[in-house]
């Protein structure tokens, strides 16, 4: 009986003309509307897809994508192996959705100490799949259609598409470079916001500002005055602050990472985002977190429970143990949070030296493991192409990886479409690399310089 009914349905399909709606999804253009949702409009392009592929194909020295080429610390790896092979095989099963209890407890303790507050691990902390997913939860929870979000340029590239996917409007305000003192190298501190310009970006529709300090790609560490400027505007306009602090431990030259949530009037309106990947040199573990008042985090929990729900258990257990160790050693010389920035500062200085020696002008970063350099003196190798759609630095970076085997990321990747040509002669290097890698980069640069100067 079923078969007869089945047949008649097919007859029905053949004889009856297709009415309003779309034709089959066999890859051809639909009759009236596309298969994908409107929220994907304008967010399909992604710089990393292209540049990661190029680095994989051509590079001998990859200073492009931001991840260490050295391993996580031994104590962390041991914690991971201990967790997965230990007697408690339930660590291979679901844990608490909003964060594995040992991890949220230690995070509440640790950040409570840093912020001078009593944090409730169950309500003031939420674990996410990397800081990336924490950002996603924030935008989905708080940005509605028509809301404006202020983004400081240059910015970690995902902020813009995430705001758009949430139906929001990104409003950009640039850091502007000031000329360094004579004879000195430019520092990331020389890139600053114009207070009047910043203030002008706030409107009735502004819902949030996204702050990234230490800043990727420039390495800028916002000082107290700069944070107070931002905080005053947040309070005045009653907006939220999403504070991406993934590089919080990577600050150099004795500089201090100041948490904007600790400023007057800011705790209640700020979500702080952190990352185990950056904290413990384990980017592939994808463990991140948010810290903030329950009033805000409750909405992040709603997004989280309706999108991924749980994060992997074993890595959370290991990160919890890592933080326990660091809490015991806080401020002491054998703390990983003291040792890592010390090592990275040295690597920063090597790379600065290498670049300066050949005529690429580095902007010395105050923090993060990124460094941006001005490649104007190397422009002759990559001639300008008038009316090109592609920003100059992008073409330069592609030429460089293909011809010199050195991978870096064009700074224009960190600007919105209309502003990509504003600063198009800079490229970003990642220096979280082994000594051998940085030496090899130096060799490439030296050889390149020699080829330029010899007839």
């Amino acid at each position, binding site marked *: 009986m*079923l078969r007869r009914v*089945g047949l008649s*349905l097919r007859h*029905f*399909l053949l004889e009856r003309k*297709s*009415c*309003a*709606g779309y*034709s*089959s*999804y*066999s890859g051809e253009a639909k009759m009236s509307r596309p*298969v*994908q*949702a409107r*929220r994907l409009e304008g*967010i399909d392009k992604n710089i*990393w*897809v292209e540049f990661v592929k190029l680095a994989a194909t051509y590079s001998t020295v990859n200073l492009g994508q931001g*991840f260490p*080429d050295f*391993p*996580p610390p031994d104590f962390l790896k041991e914690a991971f192996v201990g967790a*997965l092979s230990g007697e408690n*095989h339930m660590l*291979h*099963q*679901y844990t608490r959705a909003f964060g594995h209890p040992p991890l949220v407890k230690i995070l509440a303790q640790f950040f409570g100490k840093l912020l001078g507050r009593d944090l409730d691990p169950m309500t003031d902390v939420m674990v996410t*799949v*990397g800081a*990336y*997913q924490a950002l*996603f939860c924030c935008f989905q*929870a*708080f940005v*509605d259609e028509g809301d404006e979000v202020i983004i400081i340029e240059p910015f970690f590239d995902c902020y813009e*598409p995430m705001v758009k996917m949430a139906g929001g409007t990104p409003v950009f305000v640039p850091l502007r470079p000031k000329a360094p003192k004579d004879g000195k190298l430019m520092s990331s501190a020389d890139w600053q916001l114009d207070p009047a310009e910043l203030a002008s970006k706030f409107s009735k529709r502004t*819902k949030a500002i996204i702050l990234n300090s230490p800043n990727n790609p420039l390495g800028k560490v916002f000082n107290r005055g700069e944070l107070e400027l931002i905080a005053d505007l947040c309070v005045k306009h*009653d907006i*939220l602050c999403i504070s991406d602090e993934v590089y919080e431990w990577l600050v150099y030259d004795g500089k201090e990472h100041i948490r904007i949530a600790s400023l007057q009037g800011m705790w209640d*309106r700020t979500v702080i985002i952190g990352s185990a990947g950056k904290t413990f040199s384990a980017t*592939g*573990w*994808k463990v991140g977190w948010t810290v903030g008042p329950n*009033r805000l985090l*409750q*909405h992040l*929990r*709603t997004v989280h429970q*309706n*999108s*991924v*729900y*749980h*994060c*992997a*258990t*074993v*890595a959370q257990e290991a990160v919890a143990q890592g933080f326990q160790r660091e809490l015991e050693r806080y401020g002491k010389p054998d703390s990983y949070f003291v040792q890592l920035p010390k090592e990275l500062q040295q690597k920063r200085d090597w790379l600065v030296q290498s670049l300066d020696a050949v005529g690429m002008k580095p902007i010395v970063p105050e923090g993060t493991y990124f460094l941006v350099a001005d490649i104007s003196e190397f422009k002759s190798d990559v001639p300008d192409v008038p009316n090109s759609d592609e920003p100059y630095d992008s073409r330069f970076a592609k030429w460089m990886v293909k011809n010199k085997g050195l991978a870096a990321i064009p700074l224009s990747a960190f600007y919105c479409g209309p502003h990509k040509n504003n600063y198009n002669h800079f490229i970003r290097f990642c220096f979280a690399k082994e000594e051998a890698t940085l030496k090899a980069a130096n060799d490439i640069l030296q050889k390149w310089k020699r080829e330029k100067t010899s007839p």
Partner: protein
Amino acid sequence: MAFRHENTRRIEGLDSNVWVEFTKVAADPSIVNLGQGLPDISPPSYVKEELAKAAAVDRLNQYTRGFGHPSLVKALSQVYERVCGRRIDPLTDILVTVGAYGSLFSTIQALIQEGDEVIIIEPFYDCYEPMVKMAGAKPVFIPLRYVSSFLKITYHIKFLIHTQYTNKFNSKTKAIILNTPHNPIGKVFTREELQVIADLCIKHDTLCISDEVYEWLVYKGNKHIKIATLPGMWERTITIGSAGKTYSVTGWKLGWSIGPQNLIKHLQVVHQNTLYTCPTPLQEALAQAFWIDYKRMDDPDCYFYSLSRELESKRDRMAQLLQEAGLKPVIPDGGYFMIVDVSTLNVDLSDVDEKQPYDYKFVKWMITSKKLSAIPLSAFCGPETKRQFEKYIRFCFIKKDGTLDAAEVILKNWNKQTA
């Protein structure tokens, strides 16, 4: 001040969750927990060994390819090419996600928008409804109807061919969510039933989101059929799978979506704008485990089949215990859940004044007085069918012998105590 910090419209009303209430129970060791669906058996040892091996490789602790670790998508393509009998491109036809949950989210965010309708078969895995709503779309429910036969109670969808429910498919219907083997009922949709759904999808040009996380857990006399393999369905179907359910590692939170490039590419866009990449060492370990089992897919020792056999005997034991206690279980054909009609016990809870369905009250009573937990079935129902299913509760039987032994003691002593 409060106005500015309000949540967005998209999450309005989506904050409550049945699990929050009932998983707290899991923390109490005196309760025999047959509620939440997670194994308390160990994953196979080679799976754990592969994870240890992966974690020892430096670069496997750093970012991998966003849409899926190369060795994993390769392994998945091989396994599923074999199962589906068609070519599956590992780079364009597969997306690795944070659990099957993440695949459901990516699929719905990619392909469903405001103004769309999405058909959900009731009872349903509870996240489907809020995910559809979060995408701005309208869930449209079609209930499974039960028929008790001489041999057993079954649930079927054949009635779908009658006009009353075919009108649920219309020009606004963007997708139907199918779950086979089914949670919570344990139904394995037959080829005829899948054909009924397929015919409607083709007729109305509807997508099919096929949640097949329990695909390997089918019991004797049943076969798991992938709707994507029916004529006309590959191009309109996203098939979702889960490492957690395949390898008894729910805490690894790895899943995947498989489908045609022109649909998967949109899921990839969602993924690159939500979490970008999944954890590397877990993906590498999963890839290695898949290779081990792929090589023995003709061998009964393959974990896909051995787990199923192990669970079938647990299913049978569970069913017997429940029957002996005077309950009426619905014997599942697949999955690791069993629903039970508790009305035969005639537990009077009318004096409990909470405005909750009977099964919620029953489960709470059972937890406190019998120290046994389950999940109320109305948690898996839309507003109109809650009444219909409120005499059922769901047990999970992917539990070690010790847990089932403890459950046996409780069930055997059930009638000795009165409420």
